[in-house]
């Protein structure tokens, strides 16, 4: 499978802090790549750097073979990368419908078909269509955020900790929907919940102190207790 996204020696500063100090990874088309690591390791910053929200100071990011590390965020998004941030980024004062409308780059038959698909996947959104985004539950907000990222014909979705702060039953629902979306798009997932991540992930990268320190097929990590203990603190 070809590389859809490639990061090579990425370094990123946030203010005076040197957060990413050498992140390299390859995302294969059609796969779910999971970024793992302890809190503060640099997983969220990696996604933000790909989106251009915290621009890289060094290194190369290519998407479909084109360098994107110097592009502004909106251009990166238009290239076909959808982003679901850790805090979901819902426009609290806008209704679910308006949140979706802001995200829609086109209003053609293909987009409408995607909308139908996403509303079948997340029927709650249909039920709360006119309700302000700020009044949704945590799980519904997560669904709306994923739906917004998916509504355009994005080839890659970056999803940051979709299980964070959600009840286990809701996490299950959100993860099920991500599994269903696997067939339609490539996903980079940041996830602390290893059990969940290992169920849906094809490949993994472990980030520690701003560097990618290990990677491979998820099957390998499932079997490698030492590696999990060393970098993730779990047996």
């Amino acid at each position, binding site marked *: 499978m070809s590389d859809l996204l490639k990061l090579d020696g990425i370094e990123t500063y946030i203010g005076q802090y040197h957060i990413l100090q050498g992140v390299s990874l390859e995302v294969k088309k059609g796969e779910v790549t999971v970024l793992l690591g302890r809190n503060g390791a640099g997983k969220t910053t990696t996604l933000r750097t790909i*989106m251009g*929200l915290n621009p890289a100071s060094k290194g190369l990011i290519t998407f479909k073979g084109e360098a994107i590390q110097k592009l*502004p*965020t*909106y251009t990166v*998004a*238009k290239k076909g990368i959808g*982003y679901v*941030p850790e805090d979901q*980024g819902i*426009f*609290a*004062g*806008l209704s679910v419908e*308006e*949140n979706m*409308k*802001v*995200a829609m*780059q086109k209003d053609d038959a293909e987009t409408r078909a995607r909308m139908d698909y996403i509303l079948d996947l997340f029927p709650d959104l249909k039920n709360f269509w006119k309700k302000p985004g700020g009044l949704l539950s945590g799980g519904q907000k997560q669904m709306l955020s994923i739906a*917004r990222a998916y509504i*355009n014909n994005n080839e890659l979705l970056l999803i940051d900790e979709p299980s964070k702060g959600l009840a286990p039953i809701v996490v299950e629902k959100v993860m099920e929907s991500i599994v269903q979306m696997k067939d339609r798009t490539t996903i980079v997932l940041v996830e602390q919940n290893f059990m969940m991540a290992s169920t849906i992930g094809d490949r993994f990268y472990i980030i520690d102190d701003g560097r990618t320190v290990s990677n491979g097929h998820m099957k390998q990590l499932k079997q490698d207790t030492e590696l999990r203990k060393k970098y993730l603190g779990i047996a």
Partner: protein
Amino acid sequence: MDVLLNLSLNGLATGMLIFLLAAGLTLIFGLMDVLNFAHGGLFAWGAYSGIWIYSQTGSFFIGIFGAVLVGFILGILTEKWIIKPVYGNHVQQILITLGLMLVLSEMLKVIWGPNQISATPPSYLAGSWEIGGVIIIKYRLFIIFVGLLVFAAVQYMLSKTKIGLVVRAGVMNKEMVQALGINIKRVFMFVFMIGAGMAALSGVLLGPYSGVIHAEMGLEFAILAFIVVVIGGMGSFKGSLLAAALVGLSGSFMAYYVPDLALAANMLLMAIVLVFRPQGLFGMKG
């Protein structure tokens, strides 16, 4: 009764002028997080350029159109050259926009001279109607009508169009708007242009209302506009309309009944709102 009605009309007309000035200010702050102290300068430029065009062409409506156009152009230039380099830095924004305010005011004196300029409404808007023994001044009604028309138009734009949705979303979360593939800088420029256009419209309408315009008028009205923005809630368009009406009405009634307390009343109103609702009447917490 006719005194009450006239004071109300006068207050609402003043309120509409302040609203047109404050609405741009609140949108610019809400979306762009920019404290634009030069907004009053754009207002004064609208007044001078509009009244000058009116005097040259003899058409008040061409004057209004010209003033708004000047506002749009000055807004674009201000955003591009003055505001853009200082995004995210409030201290620099205050200093540079205060400086620009002074430059804009002094430029008016250079071009049109230091003396105040008189302005009268066109014949069809001059004078008054007498309805049931109550005298209603036509030009005040005209200002209220224009203010409400602009409110309705901008409200429609904000609630029913894609660009309006993007502006509202941008007020809530700029970063996310960009991550959805929208060039927020273009939206910034659009909002700045609309805000400056409304300020200029307010300026040109004020001319015949007060009878004279002068270079320092921007600063005087900008203070009222800032009070309105704080009372209405930073970033709230509807809040600006309500707060401007309150400030206009309180100014009008106080000036008639307790003239010494006219300005203090606005400050008191702002203080009361800040005590009970620090985010303003329609502002969001946080």
